[in-house]
């Protein structure tokens, strides 16, 4: 066998739904392989087959010439396969140091359960300490060494998770969307580390941010509907006709009319003199002693699409959580339709017409799509779905599918449909396009524009081209403060607010 890792016709089904339909892929030693594809293409499931998270119904997985199809994850780790997850998986109750030390310690002992663990103090072993300190330094986490992980920002957690895989010195490093949900600066930091490993380690990376991949990957594979439709050098794959059709939805010679994506300000008049729909005044919020957002004031008028832009850790999510009632401001006031809402419970605020969709796209995994919508209907007393489903025709088809088995884009549509039931005044969405494929993001941006006639949208978004397309007003946030506000279309389209970020 000349390939370090290979699959042969692997098939994975979830009930009647086939997530991976006969994928054969060979990975060479010390190459960096990128896998892209629309959401729901089966990329995460395929990585799961490589790690042992899913056992395929058909086909085989080989590590050199060893059949590992039936091995469990912890057994595969011993052969050197290491996965970093799309949604961060770290030990929230341990310190940063301990997270890394545990991973390194497991590697050093190379046993599934080292019995000497009772005698080992992770802080006192010189070699553990040296390796951990080096990883902390390389990943620029040194300042956070003693912090409990639950207090870290998402970007820091992602870095920590990749550092945990890296410190175990795996033969194959599997990365599932390592760049989702973190800012450009942090992505670049991770890229520096990955580039150092290039040529020395076998890396499989699933990612949507293709622009970040072109320098990194040796080969690029594209998945679509559970199959690999192209695999080869980066440029060649990107330009492949089928890839362009499936992934980018670009068809040769068809200059699609994209004007619907652009601003429709003429048809909708925003009355900026009236009482704002949401008005936040001098709000300071924090967790315990730590203050995250300082003296923040902002306004959202009815009918607008307002975007809150800023780097990770700027306090955007905290702001949203505060408006939605999950956090109590330490000072300041929040008004919705002219009524004070600070201190009210989240469910009261939601029923009052202010809906909030969290970043993590969490759904009730065991319920069907229909049951989700019913839940929302019971709560609001609004049982008419026809108009809402006209925005999301795909949900009609998926009505009886279990929510756990939806792709990221489908989950986002479901959550938006749920929020729309009950005719809310405003919907707050935290990074709705995070981790979604370009074609899906395009679909969503069309939906956003259509929704303007139904409700007001207040969105946290890091995808600046999308912001330029849809936003009427952009707030730039930095280190817990609003640093700029832009309402002029031309400035938004030229991304002039970007310099504040």
């Amino acid at each position: 066998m000349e390939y370090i890792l290979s699959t042969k016709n692997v098939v994975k089904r979830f009930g009647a739904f086939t997530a991976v339909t006969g994928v054969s892929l060979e990975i060479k030693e010390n190459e960096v392989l990128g896998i892209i594809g629309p959401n729901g293409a089966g990329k995460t499931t395929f990585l799961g087959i490589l790690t042992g998270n899913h056992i395929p119904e058909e086909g085989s997985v080989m590590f050199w010439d060893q059949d590992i199809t039936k091995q469990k994850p912890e057994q595969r780790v011993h052969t050197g396969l290491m996965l970093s997850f799309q949604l961060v998986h770290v030990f929230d109750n341990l310190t940063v140091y301990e997270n890394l030390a545990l991973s390194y310690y497991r590697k050093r002992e190379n046993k599934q359960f080292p019995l000497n663990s009772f005698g080992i103090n992770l802080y006192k072993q010189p070699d553990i300490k040296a390796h951990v300190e080096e990883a902390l330094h390389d990943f620029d986490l040194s300042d956070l060494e003693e912090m409990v992980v639950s207090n870290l920002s998402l970007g820091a957690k992602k870095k920590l998770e990749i550092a945990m895989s890296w410190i175990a010195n795996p033969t194959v490093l599997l990365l599932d969307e390592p760049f989702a949900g973190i800012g450009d600066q942090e992505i670049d930091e991770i890229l520096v580390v990955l580039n150092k490993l290039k040529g020395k380690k076998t890396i499989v990376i699933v990612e949507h941010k293709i622009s970040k991949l072109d320098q990194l990957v040796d080969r690029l594979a594209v998945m679509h509907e559970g199959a690999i439709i192209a695999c080869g050098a980066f440029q060649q794959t990107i330009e492949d006709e089928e890839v362009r059709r499936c992934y980018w939805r670009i068809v040769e010679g068809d200059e699609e009319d994209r004007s619907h994506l652009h601003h429709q300000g003429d048809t909708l008049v925003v009355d900026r003199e009236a009482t704002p729909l949401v008005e936040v005044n001098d709000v300071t919020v924090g967790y315990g002693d730590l203050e995250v957002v300082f003296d923040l004031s902002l306004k959202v008028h009815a009918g607008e699409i307002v975007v809150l832009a800023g780097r990770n850790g700027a306090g955007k999510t905290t702001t949203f959580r505060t408006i939605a009632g999950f956090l109590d401001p330490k000072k300041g006031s929040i008004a919705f339709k002219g009524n004070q809402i600070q201190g009210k419970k989240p469910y009261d605020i939601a029923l009052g017409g202010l809906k909030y969709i969290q970043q993590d796209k969490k759904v009730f995994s065991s319920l069907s799509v229909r049951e989700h919508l019913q839940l929302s209907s019971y709560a609001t007393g609004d049982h008419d779905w026809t108009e809402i489903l006209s925005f999301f025709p795909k949900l009609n088809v998926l009505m009886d599918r279990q929510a756990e088995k939806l792709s990221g884009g489908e989950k986002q549509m479901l959550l938006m449909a749920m929020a729309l039931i009950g005719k809310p005044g405003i919907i707050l969405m935290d990074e709705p396009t995070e981790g979604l494929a370009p074609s899906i993001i395009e679909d969503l941006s069309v939906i956003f524009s259509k929704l303007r006639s139904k409700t007001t949208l207040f969105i946290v978004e890091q995808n600046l081209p999308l912001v330029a397309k849809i936003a009427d007003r952009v707030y730039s946030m930095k280190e817990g403060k609003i640093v700029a506000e832009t309402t002029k279309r031309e400035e938004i389209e030229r991304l002039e607010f970007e310099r504040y970020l």
Partner: protein
Amino acid sequence: MKNDATRAPSLAMHEMAPHRRNTSILYPIIFVGLLIISRYLFPSKMTLLIEVGIFAIYVMGNNVLMGYLGLVSFGQPFYLSAGAYSAALYLAHIGHNIYIAMGLSLVTGVLLSLIFGPSFIRLRSSYFTLINASLCAMGVFLFEKILIGITNGNDGLWYRKNMHPTPILNLRSTPDFFIFTMIVLFIFLLLYRQLDRSALGAIFRGTRINERKMEFIGFNTFKVRWLGFTLASVMSCFAGSLYAINLAFVNPSLGENSRAIEVVVATLIGGVGTLYGGLFGALGFLGIKDIVSNFVSRWELIVGIITLLVLFRMSGGLWGFVSSITDKISRKRTKRLAQIEASTDTLKRGK
């Protein structure tokens, strides 16, 4: 590779992770020292203090399951009574050596976890809780009815005359047994402190919060939980044998289901998943019981209300409350140190 300027600033005590605070070896010495001093200050409370020492070991065992691994068991009295009976049956029918009786209870603990561990550990959350509860019910039936020929059923076993005096510390005499209990408690506190600081402690904590990730970095979590289960069972059995030797009497009521709550409540009062939570839980639970039962016959009611107060008012239980006080002291000290440093800096600059 790294110079001092880029080194992480060391955090003050109150900013550190809860399990990284108060790790000084002075604590077990102070705690056991205070228990010994109170025995001489209040001689009438000696039996209570012995019970606190034994109960603390029992609660610490339960804390491994409940606090570190997140597994709540309503069957701990079974392991307690199994340990007590293995010591008692040996002393009543076979031998006379108290230390061998204790050793037997440890063997019983290991055997029980070898037998029941693999199947129980596969169960999650409430199923684990309830299968232990049913085991507990079967245990009572076993000691009361099935083994009545050797256990005397509900009448219990009496064997003080079979217990031979032991050299150095005579475990038949209560004052010597008190000293022995304190020594054992001290050793357990030291071992527990080592567990808390060790890689194993981190593995337990990590498994509780994110078992999948633990598998993905390559640990076999089944074995991890099995080991935790074994530690809890062995500690419960050992505590049981101490009860049996202290009272020179056992009957099946020691293992009754209704008593399963006691150890869970004591763990909650003390502070779930904390290093000294077991000791403080035992002290709090038995202390409240001792004081309240002087005034009210149904002391459980008052203990229940106090438990609720502790749970709502003190995050991290009694030990959490005590350590928040030590944190405050450390916070003041770091502040003062910073002031001293600042003033010496200005002095230096003045020169």
